[in-house]
């Protein structure tokens, strides 16, 4: 599989869209913090006001910029699946996937190489974009209102780990649709159908949760659903520490979902006719 993985990565990096993604990701990382700084300057906000706004949940600092950059509904988070799907799907549209099968590569190695390549592209780009956004933000804003401690570092690492899980799931969904649809357009449409369904469902669950009896089991179940919806979760990076419940609610169901999507994707690809 190493040979295939090298091939997939090499051809992805050589794709013009890879360069386009680098430019877009870099441009957003530079422009967005700059825009916020500009707006705050225009409004005449000083550092104290900015920190006050942050405490009210409205403000901006490097930490909030870092985690908002990870949002699936944000500019780059929305664009990334489109570009990566087009890059990966070229193996099907150009017929080059046939070379791999004819060369005696197993369906498993082809599928997992494609999945890992997708994950490296998706996670690599989103992490590079988010970290660059944070670094640019640090020029204009503090990381957070309080001093950065070792516990903040632990919290940061845990948060990044959870983002990695979410983006791995996005990669698994993308790969699942690519191997089943074999066309970039259809795969992108299907991804966004899932994205919008999950977002709408997340909003409905969120609304019902607010009005449910806080002592009921139903409330607890809604809390679980609310926290585990990777598409709408706001639990990552917005606090100072995690309760064990937060981690279990977010990590376990999504890890299981990832395994399910990957397994289903492989099972369907294993016996899929390739034309």
């Amino acid at each position: 599989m190493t040979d295939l993985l090298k091939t997939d990565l090499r051809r992805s990096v050589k794709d013009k869209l890879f360069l386009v993604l680098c430019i877009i990701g870099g441009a957003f990382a530079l422009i967005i913090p700059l825009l916020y700084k500009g707006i705050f300057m225009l409004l005449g906000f000083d550092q104290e006001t900015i920190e006050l706004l942050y405490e009210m949940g409205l403000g901006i600092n490097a930490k909030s910029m870092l985690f908002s950059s990870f949002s699936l509904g944000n500019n780059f988070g929305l664009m990334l699946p489109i570009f990566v799907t087009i890059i990966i799907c070229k193996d099907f549209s150009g017929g080059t996937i046939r070379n791999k099968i004819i060369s005696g590569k197993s369906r498993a190695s082809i599928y997992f190489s494609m999945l890992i390549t997708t994950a490296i592209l998706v996670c690599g780009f989103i992490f590079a974009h988010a970290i660059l956004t944070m670094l640019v933000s640090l020029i204009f804003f503090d990381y957070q209102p309080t001093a950065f401690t070792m516990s903040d570092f632990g919290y940061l690492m845990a948060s990044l780990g959870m983002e990695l899980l979410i983006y791995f799931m996005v990669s698994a969904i993308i790969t699942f649709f690519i191997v089943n649809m074999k066309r970039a357009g259809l795969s992108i449409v299907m991804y966004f159908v899932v994205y919008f369904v999950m977002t709408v469902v997340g909003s409905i669950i969120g609304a019902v949760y607010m009005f449910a009896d806080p002592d009921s089991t139903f409330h607890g179940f809604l809390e679980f659903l609310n926290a585990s919806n990777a598409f709408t979760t706001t639990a990552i990076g917005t606090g100072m520490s995690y309760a064990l419940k937060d981690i279990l609610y977010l990590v376990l169901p999504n890890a299981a979902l990832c395994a399910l999507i990957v397994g289903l994707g492989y099972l369907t690809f294993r016996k899929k006719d390739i034309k």
Partner: protein
Amino acid sequence: MDYVLETFDLSKRYNSQWALKDVNMRVAKGDVYGFVGENGSGKTTVIRLVTGLIFPTKGHSALFGVRDDDPAILAQRRRVGAIVESPSIYMNMSAADNLRLQCSVLGIKEGVEEKVQKTLAAVGLSDLYESKKLAGNFSLGMRQRLGIGMALIGEPELIILDEPMNGLDPAGIVEVRELIIKLNREREITFLISSHILSELALVATKYGIISKGVLVKEITTSELLRECRASVLIESKNTSELISLVKSTFSPDDYTQTTSGVKVYGDIDLNALLGKIISAGISLDSVVCSRMGIEEYYLSLIGGKAND
């Protein structure tokens, strides 16, 4: 005999439609196997099945004696190079980069540059080794040759080419044909070449498989084919009806066909005797043309009708 490729009742059904029904074919080592059939006859389906792109509904195939449901088939596929339908190349890469990437797929790590250079030379694209020209800007013939190069770089023992002459100009057809002959003779590579035009394969094939409507109608060697292609005499006359009556009384219905201005008689006949009979019956002759049945005619007679093209 060593068979490089065999199929056993190979069948494929799409929904309720059988695209392929009980195909039993054998490609021996060293053959240039011409796989002929009209468009939609099932040639590409057979090729997809034997290369593992699609799965059979019934039956199986074997490469170098290994069945396609045996896990060892993957190692045997490594001994095969193929172009299915169109050359599978990365259009946003140069010829050399495409070959380097194929080396990477095949896990070739040693002497990659030498292999790339040699392969480009073998397919007549040497001047593209250092060229940055992208495959997307190549002519159809260049793409076809690069596709053959991609199939060739792993030093396969069997090369499967699906309609390799499609879209090529006459010069391109000659180039590809000469390349196939050279590789077959010099490197002893076995070829399976599909085409919907039998005459395209006539100069290269050593054996033919003729497929129609998903059924393998006949497997025939080139020498058998030439024997089967019978001699014929076209006799034209103004007294067509009398001529036909005379021929009818002399030959069985399988041995002649009527034309608009005369009759065509098949087989190694005694021409002098026939012409003497016609003249003594007072039938005037306009023309007498002797010929042998073309392989296209033979092919059409096998599949029972006109080809689509």
